[in-house]
């Protein structure tokens, strides 16, 4: 069931109740949950927040915390699985799902009470109609009737059948045996036809996995409707949607549309705050910015090199690319001395002109898409962060799992880093992000030089042989894979290269022999659609490989290292 009026049908229902918030491991979810928590705090509602990773995590968390909680909010998780089936909740428990993963599970959509999906049904694409996928109960009975005529006979004799059955039964007697047989076959045929039709529809529906609106933005709009929005909440919503942009979860078209909306929120909130402490208060500005990772916190050359887009367009891992970069800097009038020191230490004049210089030369150097609209947050006299900086820093924090630092610790740290009081966490995150991006670049460079990206005809694959401090985690592996695919396409001469997807794999845990597999959509594809989820599932069925599709991202799976070759073979067959 979709809940469209969040204020009345979602929030009002919850006021004064105890709530369990289950949050997935992604930045959008963290932002959304922070906004929700702020709302609940205003109304003195008791809540419990539990971070989870994957379906098993969801199940365990619910089992542990259910207690007598009657309302559960799932943030960026659970939309794509049949919640009632999975968790077996008590009758009076209600689930509110705020999930940007698509497609939503049809059982959740057509649940009449227990499962409420926050969002607008009209925005959802081609949800199969109820009749086409659920056989109504009447049909079921007919079916039974056809399957065992003996039972039907018994029912008639005892007269205990239901009314419609009784209506039919006498007629059935009048028909000759042959006719009845025919009828049954017809019915079965119709049923079979319906079933295959249903399978087709379901396949079409679930074939691609993609993403809907950012959960953080959705929740922020609720806050707005409740008149409880403020700068912080808005910023978190912006970080949420920026994550979607940076990880390719949103089409650039819809991003632009959302930008306009957010801009109106920004100007409204900016005007609302009184002028007293404008200098020290936090301020959000809309501006065109550059797709360069963390360039405000890094030397320009580094940032250029480690940014996926710029690096791949200029092929910065080659010697020629390096020359081209110098050429660009020269034409920009940016002395190398300045380009090589941290952006913050650059000459003020150069800093002010940096954006316009890059923009001016973007066309010439074939990097037109480097400009995009985004928001920056400034507070106090020094700190100024782009939304993307936050996203990269949080990503790095989330994947900074170490021996003594569990994934949950990382999650909570990332969540802390969002609030302004914990600036040191954020700057530590930014430093970590730098390391991560440098590592990604080096890996791409060496892999491309060694030609480790192989083609399997209909897709590329790339296999890391050893456990890696960075790439054994889904987001980092995803970043690597996307960089690698772009880089490979940029260097490859094959004409169809931009249309081919990439599968990257990295060993997870040497002891258990598991590895992580990530599927990345082709470069030319702009929409966030990804068919790997379904494809992985089918390939696993065909090859008999045990696949662990535990993550809520369907295109990220785990499997045994030893099964990898067999699995890739099956996938090759499937996709050709």
């Amino acid at each position, binding site marked *: 069931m979709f809940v469209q009026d969040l204020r009345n049908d979602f929030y009002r229902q919850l*006021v*004064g109740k105890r709530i369990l918030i289950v949050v997935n491991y992604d930045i959008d979810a963290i932002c959304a949950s922070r906004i929700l928590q702020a709302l609940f705090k205003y*109304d*003195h509602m008791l809540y419990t927040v539990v971070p989870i990773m994957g379906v098993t995590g969801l199940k365990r968390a619910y089992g542990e915390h259910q207690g007598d909680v009657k309302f559960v909010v799932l943030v960026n998780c659970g939309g794509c699985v049949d919640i009632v089936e999975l968790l077996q909740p008590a009758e009076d428990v209600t689930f509110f799902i705020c999930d940007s993963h698509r497609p939503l599970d049809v059982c959740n959509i057509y649940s009449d009470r227990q499962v409420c999906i926050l969002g607008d049904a009209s925005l959802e694409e081609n949800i199969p109609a109820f009749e086409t996928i659920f056989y109504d109960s009447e049909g079921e009975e007919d079916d039974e009737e056809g399957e065992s005529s003996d039972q039907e006979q018994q029912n008639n004799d005892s007269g205990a059948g239901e009314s419609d059955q009784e209506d039919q039964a006498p007629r059935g007697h009048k028909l000759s045996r042959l006719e009845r047989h025919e009828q049954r076959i017809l019915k079965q045929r119709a049923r079979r036809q319906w079933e295959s039709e249903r399978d087709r529809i379901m396949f079409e529906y679930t074939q691609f996995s993609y993403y809907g609106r950012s959960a953080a933005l959705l929740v922020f709009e609720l806050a707005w409707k409740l008149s409880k929005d403020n700068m912080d909440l808005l910023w978190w919503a912006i970080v949420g949607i920026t994550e979607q942009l940076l990880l390719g979860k949103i089409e650039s078209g819809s991003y632009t549309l959302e930008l306009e909306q957010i801009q109106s929120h920004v100007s409204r909130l900016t005007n609302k705050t009184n002028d007293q402490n404008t200098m020290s208060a936090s301020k959000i500005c809309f501006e065109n910015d550059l797709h360069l990772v963390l360039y405000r916190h890094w030397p320009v050359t580094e940032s250029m090199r480690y940014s996926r887009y710029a690096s791949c367009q200029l092929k910065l891992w080659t010697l020629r690319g390096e020359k081209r970069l110098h050429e660009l800097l020269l034409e920009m009038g940016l002395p190398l001395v300045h380009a090589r020191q941290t952006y913050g230490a650059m000459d003020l004049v150069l800093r002010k002109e940096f954006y316009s210089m890059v923009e001016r030369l973007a066309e010439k150097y074939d990097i037109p898409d480097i400009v995009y609209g985004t928001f920056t947050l400034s507070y106090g006299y020094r700190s100024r962060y782009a939304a993307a900086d936050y996203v990269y820093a949080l990503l790095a924090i989330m994947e900074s799992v170490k021996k003594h630092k569990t994934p949950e610790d990382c999650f909570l740290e990332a969540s802390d880093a969002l609030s302004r009081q914990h600036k040191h966490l954020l700057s530590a995150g930014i430093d970590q992000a730098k390391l991560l991006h440098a590592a990604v670049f080096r890996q791409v460079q060496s892999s491309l030089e060694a030609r480790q990206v192989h083609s399997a005809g209909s897709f590329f694959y790339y296999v890391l042989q050893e456990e890696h401090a960075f790439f054994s985690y889904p987001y980092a592996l995803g970043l690597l894979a996307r960089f690698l695919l772009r880089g490979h396409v940029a260097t490859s001469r094959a004409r169809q290269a931009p249309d081919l997807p990439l599968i990257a794999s990295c060993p997870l845990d040497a002891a258990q022999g598991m590895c992580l597999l990530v599927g990345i959509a082709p470069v030319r594809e702009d929409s966030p659609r990804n068919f790997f989820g379904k494809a992985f599932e089918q390939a696993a069925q065909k090859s008999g490989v045990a696949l662990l599709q535990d993550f809520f991202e369907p295109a990220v799976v785990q499997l045994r290292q030893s099964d990898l070759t067999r699995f890739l073979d099956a996938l090759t067959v499937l996709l050709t």
Partner: protein
Amino acid sequence: MSDVEDVPETQLEIDVSDGAGLEEEDDDDMEQITAQKVLEILETAWINEMCAPEILPSQTDMLELMVSQVAHMEEQMRDLDKNDFRAVVHSMELERVRYIMASYLRCRLQKIETYTQHILNQEASREPDDKRLSPEETKFAQEFAANVDEYFHKVATQYMPNQQRGEAEQRIVTPNLMSHVFLKANVAVPAVIVGVDDEEVDMAAGSQHIIPYQLVADLIQNNQAQLI
């Protein structure tokens, strides 16, 4: 110090909620004194206690009143809806009152623990009406003194040579009464002697001073001035 800084805020809130929550109590509670007055007295006592180097007379009566008042309000709160806005304000208020009481008692205990022997000696020399400790506090102080002595004895003093044991008198810790305090005069107090050379100062009502405690101890006891 930070505790004290919270006071103005607390007081403000109290004025707001008293109008709503406590006024019904006024009739059946006490002859003249209102719950708000009790709270005011307690607050002053609390601040004085926090700032004064020595222990001040205990406000047993006021505390007793307040405790029953709090219990009563809690009773009433139970009928209120948990999500009512008033409920939130009231329970916050209760929390504050409870904190003041606890902090007040804690502060006294701390002084008792530090200056145990000194306070006990002084108490022994005071008239029954003039006692500064409540009976409970006296009991606590005596127990505490005995307890410390026992501990010292068990671990150390019993092993010491005879003559060295009996000097318990040397161990008495006395508060420094000449330490400076901040003070606000409630009423005009003429001719307060300050300093050793009999210098005199007139304190205007509401004026603030910094002055050694001992010189103004009696003003505080008479409620002519209060510490801040």
